[in-house]
């Protein structure tokens, strides 16, 4: 199973868990602000997003475009996040969070 996510139309990443050391956990949980903490958070955020193959991205885009709402020229559409579960052959489930004319809506499959 892969957890695919898009927060910008056409671009997909796979979300993966990042194992942390005890020292990293302590740093993250510390109440003090530090640049070291900022760097670590950035590193974790980068590592938690893995590139997906072009073929998987194409499938995800196809699925997204299938379920995406019809948007009129006068509408303002904002994708918040599309999260799809992919089992290496097909999409098991998914949800698209978006705002249409500032109203938050969801599409599930």
């Amino acid at each position, binding site marked *: 199973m892969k*957890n695919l996510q898009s927060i910008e139309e056409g671009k997909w990443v796979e*979300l993966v868990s990042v194992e942390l050391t005890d020292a990293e956990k302590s740093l*993250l949980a510390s109440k003090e602000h530090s640049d070291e903490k900022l760097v670590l958070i950035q590193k974790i955020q980068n590592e*938690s997003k893995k590139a997906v193959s072009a073929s998987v991205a194409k499938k995800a885009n196809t699925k997204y475009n299938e379920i995406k709402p019809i948007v009129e020229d006068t509408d303002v559409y904002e994708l*918040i*996040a599309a999260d799809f*579960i992919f089992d290496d052959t097909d999409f098991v*489930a998914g949800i698209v969070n978006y705002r249409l004319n500032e109203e*938050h809506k*969801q599409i599930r499959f």
Partner: protein
Amino acid sequence: MNYIDVKNFRKYEQLFGDNGPAKIGHVNAVIKGLNEAIANIPTGGLTGSNYVYVAADGTDVQNAAALQAAYVTAQGMSPSPTNRITIVAAPGYYNFGTTPFVMNTDCIDLVSLDGNRSIIFNAPYASPFYSSGTIILDFVSNVYVRGVDVQTKAFAVETYYPGVTIENCKGGQFSFSSSFFNMGSRFVDCEGGNNSFGGNTGNSYGTFIRCKAGSYSFGLTASGTFTDCTSGGYSFGYNGTANGTFTNCTSTGSLSFGGSYSSGTASGTFLNCKSVDVSFGLVASGTFTNCTAGNDSFGYYGTASGTFTNCVGSSSCFGYYGNASGNFYNCRGTFAAFGSGGTASGSFNSCVATSVSFGGGGGTLTGKLYYCRLTQSGQNFPTVSGGGITRLCITGSNVENNQG
């Protein structure tokens, strides 16, 4: 056996007259008839065209055997969507020892006679905890279960189909969950221990109504519909994604609703939800209304890019050291809130903090502040930049602040 029509006392009255002894005679006749009916119930219970009854009138081990036999009987009754078979089990203890009660056939339902959690699987907790003496819903897609309590054992739901409904059931840790299955089913009034309802590994994309769990519950990805649910900490997408619909949900511990120090996202809709510290996303891009959290919440070191209405945090909230780029209406923080050390680039309307906020903790204020206030004495808004404005804002010295 003679049938007595309980409602038709008049018939009895015509025979014996309207007097006290006649009424008592009628009642006695009814009781006698019922006793005969009960005495004639076959051992193991009643069976109708679409139900099998388990009387639970033996020892706990015998009751378990009777339930298992009832299930086999039901399997032989050609269950289908147009021919559902319901096993009605009487209140009692059912001891399956170290073997599980496996429900692996669609369209066979199991319900308690009284609707309560009175089908009690009382085998002691044993290893392996996910199968010993408990119930397993094994990859079924169309089943209804109501009123089963497996005590501290795991109520094993190894299926994800939305056609499965589990109501008023209870288990221990790792209930309504499996590390191998996502939770797409419907759960109503169910209760589990830690790591339940998808735990912190699966995707909980089903429907959850009035469910309760311990910590690490309701999914690594919480994309379902959650209404009136309660959990311990590390729940509803801890360190993952909370992108579902959350209404009146509460986490009594920290790090929930996409909460994380490092990589959580809260992109769903959240109405009247409560948590404590480090909650509602490192990236808070969803819509949050009347939500409450503790310190380090609503974007913390990341991004608060969503829509926030009547939300309350504590210190280091609303994009603390990240970017508060969303729309904030009537929200409250305390120390170092609203992009304090990062960027306050959003729209802030009637928002209140105590101090060092709105980019005032070494960050930048490029957003638009209307009617906002700092409450700690002597606190002031930072100088705006990049198109930022403040209008009718009040400093900690009760001085009106208008910039840009």
